[in-house]
């Protein structure tokens, strides 16, 4: 860094401090450190190259697919100063694997017409070639069609190391940017990815942008939100009223305004994990909680069914069964 003091221009901090990527939200990836995993620490990839609806198996914001057979994707412990990485475990018959992130238009609009730097930690115990591909959506945040910006390869080893490349983002790329990492037949072994960063920079990759965990979680919750029972006593998800003697209608405010109105509700597949709390009594559900169209980007509505013992019109709460920690409700507004 150069510090220049001039009677004419004042104090000038050159190079690092006036770099485009130095201040504020320089890493346009969300959860590049792989620390947020609301869906759980392990999951199964999608089974085909995604178009409009990728599969997000584990770590927030990172979709994964495999062809030939699915693969396990997990959040694993890192080493040294790195807390977590994403790990793909190879499987027989796999012909290709992809891990990627789609950056929302509003978070990369300013990158159009500039040069950016992609940096990422990687290792692979089986394969040595990782292909990266940058694309932009044909229309805003709509990925049914996309245009390739550029592509290239990293030659990786079994030891985690940092790889960087420069990407010239065209002026037309104002619709959202996707970075996809792919490998070939990962039929065994593991592929590890961490500290992924995509930043505006015309020179070199800068240090990884660690954001506070709470900030990163909130950034993730714009795209996916899951609330999980505490496992202690009854865990209240939301409050509302008994719509009839057999149904409760309850509302849950999202912690962050979601990108778009969610159109589905995820749950644990077990009706007995959920129920209605009212008048000092827990009434177990007879079917799993259901999505309700009243849901918007700020608040969810959930319908729950019980035996005909509720009093219509009374206030009530949607709750987990006693001491159940596997009950959850989840909503997606992913790209």
């Amino acid at each position, binding site marked *: 860094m150069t510090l220049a003091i001039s009677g004419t221009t004042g104090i000038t901090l050159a190079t690092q401090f006036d770099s485009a990527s130095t201040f504020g939200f320089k890493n346009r990836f969300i959860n590049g450190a792989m620390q947020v995993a609301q869906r759980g620490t392990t999951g199964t990839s999608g089974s085909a190259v995604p178009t409009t*609806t990728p599969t997000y198996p584990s770590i927030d914001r990172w979709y994964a697919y495999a062809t030939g057979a699915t693969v396990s994707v997990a959040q694993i412990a890192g080493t040294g100063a790195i807390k977590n990485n994403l790990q793909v475990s190879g499987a027989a018959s796999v012909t290709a694997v992809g891990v990627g992130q789609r950056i929302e238009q509003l978070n990369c609009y300013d990158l159009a017409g500039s040069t950016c730097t992609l940096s990422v930690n990687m290792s692979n115990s089986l394969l040595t070639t990782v292909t990266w591909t940058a694309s932009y959506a044909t229309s805003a945040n709509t990925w049914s069609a996309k245009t390739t910006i550029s592509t290239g390869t990293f030659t990786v080893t079994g030891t985690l190391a940092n790889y960087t490349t420069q990407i010239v983002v065209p002026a037309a790329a104002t619709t959202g940017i996707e970075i996809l990492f792919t490998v070939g037949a990962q039929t065994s072994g593991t592929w590890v990815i961490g500290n992924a960063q995509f930043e505006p920079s015309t020179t070199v990759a800068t240090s990884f942008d660690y954001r506070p965990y709470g900030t990163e979680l909130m950034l993730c919750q714009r795209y996916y939100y899951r609330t999980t029972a505490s496992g202690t006593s009854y865990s209240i998800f939301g409050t509302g009223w008994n719509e009839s003697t057999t149904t409760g209608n309850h509302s849950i405010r999202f912690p962050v305004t979601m990108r778009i109105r969610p*159109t*589905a509700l995820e*749950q644990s597949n077990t009706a007995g994990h959920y129920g209605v709390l009212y008048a000092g009594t827990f009434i177990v559900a007879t079917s799993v909680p*259901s999505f*309700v169209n009243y849901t918007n980007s700020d608040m969810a509505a959930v*319908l729950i069914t019980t035996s005909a013992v509720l009093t219509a019109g009374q206030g009530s709460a949607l709750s987990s069964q006693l001491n159940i920690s596997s009950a959850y409700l989840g909503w997606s507004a992913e790209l």
Partner: protein
Amino acid sequence: MIYKILLINIDGLAIYARIEDDGKCYLTCAEDHPEFKEWVEAGNTPLPAEE
């Protein structure tokens, strides 16, 4: 994996349950859910609601 109609809301719109190959249901959705729309556009038809 299939979808079946779970219920009709008071707004007249259907809610669908996604039934996995093992019979489990982890997701219910509206008819404008992107994954459900893709499934329908692929030529599939949701099952009617159970009586």
